[in-house]
């Protein structure tokens, strides 16, 4: 169950996102989402074997290769965000577990219960069938500007600005 509190915690603690299947084409959903997250202070690590560079960041052929390269910079991948078909998820989940990621995030339409159970058993947070950009905008502001029902009810002043 991905509650508002859990999603807020995940998005507040995961600051470096490996985006698997990130497209270099500006009108693709993966590019939309990664660009949005980058603009909101997250580091994007593209995982795409046929691209060299996306959004100003070097692209890696696999999650493992990306994690190794980041380790040399003294950095870690917090979240593995997957824009891939549901059937392709298990090996990516295995890599996410192996590199010690905190969260396996499967985008809208991507569901793999088996891989999710395995990742959860290894201590990862798992979010399925949701868009990282949409959830960020829903819970930290922005999506409400597009008339979306965020389901956020609160009398507390938001502690961050949303642009």
């Amino acid at each position, binding site marked *: *169950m991905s*509650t*508002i*509190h*859990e999603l807020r915690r995940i998005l507040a603690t995961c600051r470096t996102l490996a985006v698997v299947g990130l497209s270099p084409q*500006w*009108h693709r*959903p993966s*590019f*939309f989402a990664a*660009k*949005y997250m980058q*603009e909101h202070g997250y580091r994007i690590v593209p995982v795409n074997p046929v691209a060299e560079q996306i959004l100003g960041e070097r692209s890696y052929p696999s999650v493992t290769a990306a994690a190794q390269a980041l380790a040399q910079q003294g950095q870690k991948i917090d979240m593995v965000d997957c824009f891939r078909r549901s059937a392709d998820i298990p090996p990516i989940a295995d890599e996410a577990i192996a590199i010690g990621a905190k969260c396996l995030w499967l985008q*809208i*339409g991507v569901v793999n219960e088996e891989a999710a159970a395995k990742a959860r058993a290894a201590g990862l947070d798992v979010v399925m069938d949701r*868009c990282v950009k*949409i959830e960020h*905008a829903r819970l930290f*502001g*922005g*999506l*409400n*500007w*597009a*008339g*979306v*029902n*965020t*389901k*956020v*009810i*609160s*009398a*507390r*002043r*938001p*502690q*961050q*600005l*949303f*642009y």
Partner: protein
Amino acid sequence: MAEQDHDYGFGTRAIHAGAVPDPVTGARATPIHQTTSFVFDSAEHAASLFNLQTFGNVYSRISNPTVAVLEERVASLEGGRAALACATGMAAQMTAILAIVKAGDHLVAASTLYGGTVGQLGIGFARLGIATTFVDPEDPENFRRAIRPDTRAVYGETLGNPLVNVFDIEAVARIAHEHGLPLIIDNTVASPYLCNPFAFGADIVVHSATKYLGGHGTTMAGVLVESGKFDWGSGLAREKFPEMLEPSRAYHGVKFYETFGDFGYTMKARMEVNRTFGGALSPLNAWLILQGIETLHLRMQAHCRNALRVAEFLGDHPLVAWVNYPGLERSPHYALAKKQFRAIDGQPGASGILTFGIRAADAVKAGERFIDACEFLSHLANIGDAKTLVIHPASTTHRQLDEEELARAGVRPDMIRLSVGIEDVEDILWDLDQALRSAVSG
């Protein structure tokens, strides 16, 4: 930590949904953002906004923070995914339809719609090359019989106006979905407090917020809401709505369904239709409607209680020939009202609209005299006000319709329509009684 998010009730959402405190000032009430435009931080920020890669405001014809609170509020109250507010109910309905319908396409609609909607579909859209077949909604199968290969949507009203017939949302939704079509429901008369059409399978809901949502009769506004459940990519739907899937010619190459998923339709309506056809709602008007919505749940209860009392009173009155109110047990629509509407005091909350005819030799003349004799019941062409409103549809709201269309809409020449307000019901009964007496004696 909670296992799941708390499920807030209707009244709480009517007051809070969409309106967290302002992050900069801490203002608790929703600020009125009376500005046409919003600055860009940089050329790059501007490009991101125009590409829809960043959510944010550009120009109040597209979106505005005050209007957005209203949009989220109504989306929440309807149990929908997203909403778009427009200048009027007619604009919302036009925008809802034009987002998925173009010249050469066809609609199937209930014949008992509000007269203004019959005009928009039957004449306005016909001039744009969009044909509408109007069918009697009493038999849901009539919709099936009218669906053609070029049909793109099915349209009805939860409660017809002025016939106050109850639309069988579940039955018609099933037929629409069998054909890969969305069901659009105008939920103005029921309001989201009494009925959530999405719960019965509707896909898109439209409102004239001018009516019960506002409740004060001061402000025009409309809202469209999408359920987020219609699969535009299904085998049946994708052939009919390729523009939901393909790169948009009207908004530089964005694929709305793929990019925005379950609120892709609302984004398409916003960016392709409302942005270019210009039906934007003003921030001040959005704010005024929001003031009304905060009491929607309380007002609708009062409207329903008063309307039922009035319907019973008129039903027993010697000078009244007939009364039509779906909240009366003898109404042919009572069973459907009970199924679709929230119960108020154990009875189906059938909203505040009812019709009746006067028992007189010349009932049409008597009707006109009745309206002139009312002391505080207001003679005007609106519904859903806190004030009780009274009108003779055949000579006013439905006067553009010819005799055949009047009969199809169920408008009898002697019909008087009441929009029962939330004044003291004893006063409403008193005014009705004295006006009836003077209509017949005069």
